[in-house]
């Protein structure tokens, strides 16, 4: 059974339809990347899947439960989905360690010492332990994103959503983050990632979903999508992003 199953998902803003009937599946341990031109609805899709944006129509089945039906416990669903943002979204007034432990203490009701232990373990995992006492403003972009990944992972989510995790970073920092996400991929962490970065997509995905104008056009492995695809939209997109790099 798929961990996430999306059926005919649509989202419209002020009459403008951004997602036009998306169907996709993500199984446990699987990692998929969503790519497509700017404005094709990639980030909207992620936000609909954890209900940050309410879908206009369609169904999202998460762990066998339809989370689009009324009365669903949105907090419980969100706490089970880790979300990593393009611009890190770390809480500025908290240290790296406090950023990680806040959710553990307040949402998972862990004791402070237990939360710190868990945070230390996760920070160690991505090489951030020596930065635990620093505030976000004292970190580089790559370190911020690694801290944001730890904050999401520490909650032991069923799936990790990543929204353009390398877009706000320079190539060196981007590589640092790709290495971390690739490590998670090799550990079979379930992930759904939105990105423009073919390098990231190739190293962290089982398959790539190509979105165009709110519709899934294709889903395939990187090698088959990247070079000389039969669909001109896909061919043109990957030619431009790969040349651009």
């Amino acid at each position: 059974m798929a961990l996430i199953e999306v059926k005919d998902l649509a989202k419209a803003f002020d009459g403008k339809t951004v997602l036009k009937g998306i169907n996709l599946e993500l199984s446990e341990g699987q990692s998929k990347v969503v790519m497509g031109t700017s404005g094709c609805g990639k980030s909207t899709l992620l936000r609909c899947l954890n209900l940050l944006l309410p879908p206009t129509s369609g169904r999202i089945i998460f762990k066998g439960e339809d989370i689009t039906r009324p009365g669903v416990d949105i907090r419980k669903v969100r706490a089970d989905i880790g979300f990593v943002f393009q611009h890190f979204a770390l809480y500025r007034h908290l240290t790296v360690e406090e950023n990680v432990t806040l959710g553990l203490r307040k949402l998972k009701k862990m004791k402070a010492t237990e939360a710190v232990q868990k945070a230390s373990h996760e920070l160690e995992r991505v090489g951030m332990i020596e930065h635990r006492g620093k505030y976000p403003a004292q970190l580089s972009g790559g370190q911020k994103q690694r801290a944001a990944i730890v904050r999401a992972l520490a909650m032991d989510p069923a799936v990790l959503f990543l929204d353009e995790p390398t877009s706000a970073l320079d190539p060196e920092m981007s590589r640092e983050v790709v290495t971390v996400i690739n490590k998670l991929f090799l550990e079979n962490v379930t992930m759904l990632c939105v990105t423009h970065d073919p390098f990231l997509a190739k190293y962290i995905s089982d398959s790539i979903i190509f979105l165009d104008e709110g519709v899934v056009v294709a889903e395939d492995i990187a090698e088959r999508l990247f070079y000389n695809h039969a669909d001109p939209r896909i061919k043109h997109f990957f030619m431009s992003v790969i040349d651009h790099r």
Partner: protein
Amino acid sequence: MDAFIQDLIAYWPQILAGLKNTVVLMVIMSVTGLMGGVGVFYLTLSSHKAVRRWMDGFISFFIGTPLIVHLFLMYYGLPELGIRLSAFTVAVIGFTLNVSAYNARYLATAYNGLDKTELEAARSQGFTRRETFRLIIMPQVMRMSVPSLTNQAIQNLKDTSVAFLIQYHDFFAQMQEVASTNFQFFKAYVTAGAVYLALISIIVLAARRLEKRIALPGLAT
């Protein structure tokens, strides 16, 4: 000895009582005004449009009308409707409403400078609106508002002298009494000014220490 100094000594117990009344009123209105300001600010973020509109109306009304009108309305106007309140009660209510409106506006301004993706992150983690307000918004907004809230506390202290006009026996009322006994108005007002300045200097020094203490490393203050 100078007649003015002699009068000051003679009136010392009343002056001290007035000073105490001034400080008490200032502290009370600063605390209630801050609590009220946080409450109004919280409601300005409500998901209900009607609540937001009411709060905007509240802020606009109290910022847009003079404090003395509110005090006079309650002290001299309400008795016409059979409601009599003491000068102290009127001062506390009037100042609280007024200061709450200003503080809510300062907090809202600081909120505009907040990185809203942090709020999205909090929602995506599963925090409720109230938890997000308490754990993410308030700690940052309060830090950013220290200079404005300090200015407001200073304004509160200065405004206590307005309470003299509704028969509240504050420090300024006592100095006025000293002046009217010996007709040395210049000396009385200069003394009053010096005392206010000394009290305000204490507030400023305390605020500077607080600002240093809560400054976040790596961020410009």
